[in-house]
């Protein structure tokens, strides 16, 4: 008999079903994007596959109506929960004018949507950590009770901006949650070539904040860790560092072939840890995810993705001259 682990964390059955649905939606969108790339319809994909549990667990622990998030490029499931739609993600993939992230200016995976407090991101990694700290500082100065959540890959945790941002947050006891999504590879570089400490959460001590490492394949465990950090932050106790350990199920991006640097055993281990499957199994064993619900999720999601794909593919591109827009603040056009 499988133990119900979510109830004790304050998650209802409906909550966990919603979490599963978001994970499944993220996975299916991601898969569709790969197909579109392989069909030559979109130039680039960077994937969330294998990190859905981490992302959904964390996002559900936050207040999606209030908190700010500074996601990194794999956080498709995080932005979904924070209000970005499938259609909007497809518009971004096709680089169409209606893409809310950038109007077709940026590659997909460079999230940003002010109305949902998704802070705009770039390609140089880890620059978002000081930004999140700055937003948290502003919130503190303005006496707001929101939390700022920032994510990065484990490779990025070696950047100066990670240390500078974390240290700043620690010194000023700012309401920031820094979550490292450790998917074991910085493109092709394995963990042992990336850092010498045992766990990345060990670094938290250096910044005067608590640090935990959790199983990133389990959304409930991630939920608990992030929830605890968010509560601390809201209580004015300052930042937290969370490392979630997961597996990257795809190549780094559509331009990469991971079979060149990962063994078959390694890849098989990753597939065995597919968090969407394992969480489905957990919910099935508890009879929360019934075959009827599962089929409905599957059908609804595929219909939503088909519609979004169709819409985005047909949607207009920005006019060429739009490339000149919004370098600086512009007077509103009449």
């Amino acid at each position: 008999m499988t133990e119900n682990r979510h109830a004790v964390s304050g998650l209802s059955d409906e909550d966990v079903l919603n979490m599963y649905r978001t994970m499944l939606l993220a996975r299916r969108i991601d898969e569709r994007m790969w197909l579109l790339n392989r069909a030559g319809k979109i130039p680039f994909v960077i994937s969330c596959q294998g990190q859905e549990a981490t992302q959904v667990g964390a996002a559900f622990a936050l207040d999606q109506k209030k908190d700010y998030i500074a996601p990194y490029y794999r956080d498709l499931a995080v932005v979904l929960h924070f209000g970005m739609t499938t259609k909007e993600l497809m518009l971004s993939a096709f680089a169409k004018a209606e893409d809310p992230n950038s109007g077709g200016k940026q590659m997909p995976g460079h999230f940003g949507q002010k109305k949902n407090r998704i802070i705009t991101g770039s390609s140089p990694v880890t620059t978002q950590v000081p930004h999140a700290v700055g937003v948290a500082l502003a919130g503190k100065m303005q006496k707001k009770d929101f939390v700022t959540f920032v994510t990065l890959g484990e490779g990025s945790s070696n950047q100066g901006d990670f240390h500078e941002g974390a240290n700043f947050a620690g010194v000023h006891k700012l309401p920031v949650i820094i979550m490292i999504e450790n998917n074991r590879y910085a493109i092709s570089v394995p963990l042992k070539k990336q850092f010498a400490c045992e766990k990345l959460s060990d670094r938290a001590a250096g910044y005067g904040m608590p640090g935990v490492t959790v199983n990133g394949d389990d959304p409930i465990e991630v939920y608990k860790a992030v929830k605890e950090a968010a509560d601390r932050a809201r209580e004015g106790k300052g930042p937290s560092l969370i490392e979630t350990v997961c597996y990257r199920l795809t190549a780094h991006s559509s331009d990469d072939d991971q079979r060149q640097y990962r063994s078959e055993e390694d890849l098989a281990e990753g597939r065995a840890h597919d968090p969407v499957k394992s969480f489905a199994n957990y919910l099935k064993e508890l009879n929360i995810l019934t075959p009827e619900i599962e089929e409905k999720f599957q059908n609804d999601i595929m219909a939503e993705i088909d519609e979004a794909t169709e819409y985005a593919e047909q949607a207009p591109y920005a006019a060429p001259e739009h490339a000149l827009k919004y370098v600086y603040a512009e007077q509103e056009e009449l």
Partner: protein
Amino acid sequence: MAIQNIVMPQLGESVTEGTIEKWLIKPGDQVKKYDALAEVQTDKVTAELPSSFTGTIGEIIAQEGDTIAVGEIVCTIQIEEAVVSEKTDTNVPKTIEHVTAISSEKSMKTRYSPAVGRLATEYQIDLSQVEGSGASGRITRKDIQKIIDMGAIPRSALQTTEQSTRVASQQAIDEVNLKADSLVQSFSTGDVEIPVSGVRRSIAKNMVTSTQEIPHAWMMMEVDVTDLVSYRDSIKEDFKKKEGYNLTYFAFFVKAVSQALKEFPMMNSQWHGDKIIQKKDINLSIAVATEDALFVPVIHHADDKSIKGIAKEIHELAQKVRNGKLKPEDMQGGTFTVNNTGSFGSVQSMGIINYPQAAILQIESIVKRPVIMNGGMFAARDMVNICLSIDHRILDGLISGKFLARIKEILENTSKESTSIY
């Protein structure tokens, strides 16, 4: 039903081609959108190529093992519906303001680039007379280069000494300009400043070129035209009535000159450095003055024309000059110039050769003078001086003297009895 093409996708940012490793379908297979069609390998990745359509596989174009460029067709699919092509957002404003509007549409004719300015100075080119081929009439460096190159064509055979002559003449133009500058400097109250017109500038330039390049020599002869005068005077009235224009003395002189030129072709020639070119046609330039300028229209083939024909042409050309109707072709092709200086009352003058001709003849005023006749008697005769300027490179005193003597002979023998004006 419609046929759609499946093309090789770009699998990776810098990838240009892919190899079909294995087909996963065959012609006639039903496929759904996103079903895998083939395994494709590129430099960066190995991937399954998904179908972009739902339909029936038509033709397999690329074979297993073939390497296909991105965008090339690998197979075809028969589908049910037509596909709508991509659009561009038309809501986004198309007009974008430019940061600074710099260029103006006004004439660029007098905007000289540093390169043009330098060349103009170096080669003494009067830029006001150059047609610009650039935007808004701007003179380009190439325009100037062309003039420099073309300018060398008529003188392409010039010997070194000639080249230096040419340079000297350019320096002279420069001096003219400099002189003009110094005059402007000495401008004082009450003086009138007259801008130099294009025509005046052209005259100045030609005169300088001629005097600087051609070594001039002069010769004058006295001609007794008493018979010519009485002949002309006797028919003048009738002629005017009949033809509608004046029969001038000048027409007789022009006729005489063209006749003499036929006999002395060297007078009708041009200096070309290593050779002298004798012109076949006798085209006489005649100088026609207006208040502020001098025009030199041409009577073409004067030797073929009668006195009356010449008179008519002089009349017409003069009319054209006065009405400003003279065309460039009216002034081209002159081989020898006859100048009616007598019309100003002059009795002696030294003409400047109309470059590149070999000589110019000035016809002075006809004056009554006492002349000792053959019998030792004095007689009042109609006398005229004819003054010849020659290019001493081509012509010498001997031939010039013979030429003048021949004209004198023709003129002194012009009379009612011997000469027809028709």
